[in-house]
């Protein structure tokens, strides 16, 4: 595997370990996994996992995985994306992949900052936050990724925190086993540019909601964690393949 180049203490380590655990469980059950990642610190995870992988370009993980899943429906495909990667440049792909209920899993590394380019605001940075590109404070309001995914039609939506590796591994596992578009937002600190370790004290866990509307309310607070919503719905691949034969 590649030698890890993340900063010491980075939340990515916890995501990596949790995903290793979850993926080993899935593989033991007889499934094959292929992964992809975008551009940013998170993107390097492709090199650190002993799985088939494609480190693609900024924001384009969902359509890449859609094409791969169509070509080989037997694979469980998982995409890693960042808040900049997936919610700034690639946001339309997230919305459409969720809308189609394409059978892929997206894990969003949300550290609220462009880390690899040394600290600029992303779509999840808080309003007023002073970064290198916003010396007078971020003029924009942040996106709530889980709400966006719920509104777009995702059939598995969850949020976790890197401080709780065990729970994270369990949710990754369930997301991969979910048939349809599953989305897991991971709150992670950036040790170098956005260290919000205080969140450890602030995050709280909620139970799954019965409806999309209830789920929308439950995940409104950006510190709320848990599986907010799941739903069984026909997948994109199933519809496409059925129309062919």
């Amino acid at each position, binding site marked *: 595997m590649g030698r890890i180049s993340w900063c010491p203490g980075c939340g990515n380590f916890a995501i990596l370990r949790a995903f290793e655990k979850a993926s080993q469980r899935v593989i033991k059950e007889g499934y094959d996994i292929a992964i992809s990642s975008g551009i940013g610190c998170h993107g390097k995870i492709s090199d650190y996992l002993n799985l088939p992988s494609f480190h*693609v370009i900024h924001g384009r993980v969902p359509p890449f995985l859609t094409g791969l899943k*169509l070509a080989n429906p037997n*694979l469980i495909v998982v995409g890693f994306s960042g808040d900049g990667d997936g919610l700034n440049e690639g946001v339309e792909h997230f919305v459409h992949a969720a809308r189609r209920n394409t059978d892929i899993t997206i894990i969003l590394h949300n550290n609220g900052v462009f880390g690899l380019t040394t600290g600029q605001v992303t779509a999840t940075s808080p309003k007023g936050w002073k970064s290198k590109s916003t010396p007078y404070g971020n003029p924009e309001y942040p996106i709530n990724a889980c709400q966006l995914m719920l509104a777009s039609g995702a059939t598995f939506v969850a949020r976790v925190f890197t401080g709780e590796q065990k729970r994270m591994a369990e949710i990754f596992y369930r997301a991969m086993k979910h048939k349809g578009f599953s989305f897991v937002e991971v709150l992670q600190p950036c040790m170098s540019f956005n260290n919000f370790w205080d969140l450890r004290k602030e995050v709280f866990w909620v139970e799954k909601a019965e409806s999309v509307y209830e789920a929308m309310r439950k995940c409104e607070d950006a510190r709320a964690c848990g599986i907010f919503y799941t739903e069984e719905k026909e997948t994109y691949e199933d519809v496409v393949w059925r129309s062919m034969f």
Partner: protein
Amino acid sequence: MNVCIAGAAGDGIRGAGVILGKIFCKLGYSVFVYQEYQSRIRGGHNASVVRASEREINSHGYYYDALICLRDYVFEKHVERLRGVLVCDSSFNLEHDRKVEFPITETVKKLNLPDISRNIAAISVFCKSFGIEAEVVESVIRESLGKAGERNLEVVRAVYENLDITVGQVRRVGERKELVSGAKAIAEGMLDAGLKFYYAYPMTPATPILHILAADNRCVALQPESEIAAIMMAIGSAFGGERAAVGTSGGGFALMSESISLAGMAEIPVLIILAQRSGPSTGMATFTAQQDLYFALNPAHGEFPLIVASPLTIEDSYRLAGELLNLSWKFQTPAILLTEKHITESYTTAKLGGVVKKEVEIFREKSSEIFKRYEITESGVSPYASPPALVKANSNEHDEYGFATDDAEIATEMYAKRMRKEEKIAKVVANLEPYIEIKNGKDWIVTWGSNFGAVKEVAEELGFSVAAVRFMRPLFLPKISGEVFCVECNYTGLLARLLEAEGLEVKRILRWDGRPFTPEEIRREVERWAE
């Protein structure tokens, strides 16, 4: 014989052109159909020019032997070109010495048929007055429109029973031929070369390819959220080991740029159909052009092997679409079929066949060892693998296993490995007719793309030799001398500039008005240079 059908958007002009084209095909003629239409759904002005000949043709003509008008106001746009018979509704008040009039609108109304059936009525008027048997018209309508077209047969009968004028005699000249569009030819070429996935966002003039493949069960054709998504899905499917292609025009191609570079870096095969239309920007969306040659040759950042070819005719677009998909997989790099609206949306008599899928080896086994996907080889081509094989691909510079690296030594080797493929590609392309030469005389007309059909005719008449370039990258230019003309649909002469770089003196024959050349117009321009 060159016939123009003109009317408004919504009058079924395009369909009428295709049906009339098929009627000529049925009588054994070689046919070319040019479609000129505006970017609107109703009103305005659309035209379809149908040319039929006993010899093989690949262009329409400038002057009309017959003009069929479905609206009175379109007459003045075309009258300058009319050298024969005007076919129109008796209620139109149009001045022309040779006219065949018929109460077209009234007949359609009386039969209680929708307005659009006026197109069938008008064709029937033309066919009856040119001595074509009713059953030829009826059988083509049955084949083209199926059950939905049944009632149109009543229109044909009404015209044939009530019109008693003969102004010409179109004879049967041979066995029935098939009429195909450029879009159909491209689709068939890709399918014969093993296409399994086609992803496209609607954009004129590439859209008909999506329509054709969406209705075809031999491949999956999908319409994603953008051209970026389209090419990324294609890259995903190719990484999964299945042949994939995308189709678009200039604006959508611009959006694909970054992903084309990704395919070059990660050595993923993908075929891109770039159907040119008039630009820059939105330009004239439904009109033809050849302005994107350099864009296709340099589509993205960084250096990587790329194959670009441009078909000369509709039949050639079948061959090249298949050839490029095969080459793309052989060399694991993107390929671009650079074509034009005048190919994709035109129709001609063609026999499609001969393209076969050239298999490549794909490793798909699970293993504990990481696959050496980017093994340094002499040819530059490394073994291909797809998941569940433990294969790693990367947009970053990488080592032989696909791990990201910025090591100077590895980067030097890996970059050179990729680029070495260009030499191998050139060797293969050299044997694939990179250009076509037709020797008629010491002076030359050089061209590329759809102009070929018109150029070939003029060159034969005036005693010029023809050189038509098919492969643009790698580029092989014919060895030519004497007086050299270059015919292109752009402002600066993009191919002409490549010829000049070889030290040739080139006389340009250019147009950038969105209209394709006819033989008559090229002849006029060649003669003008002589003055």
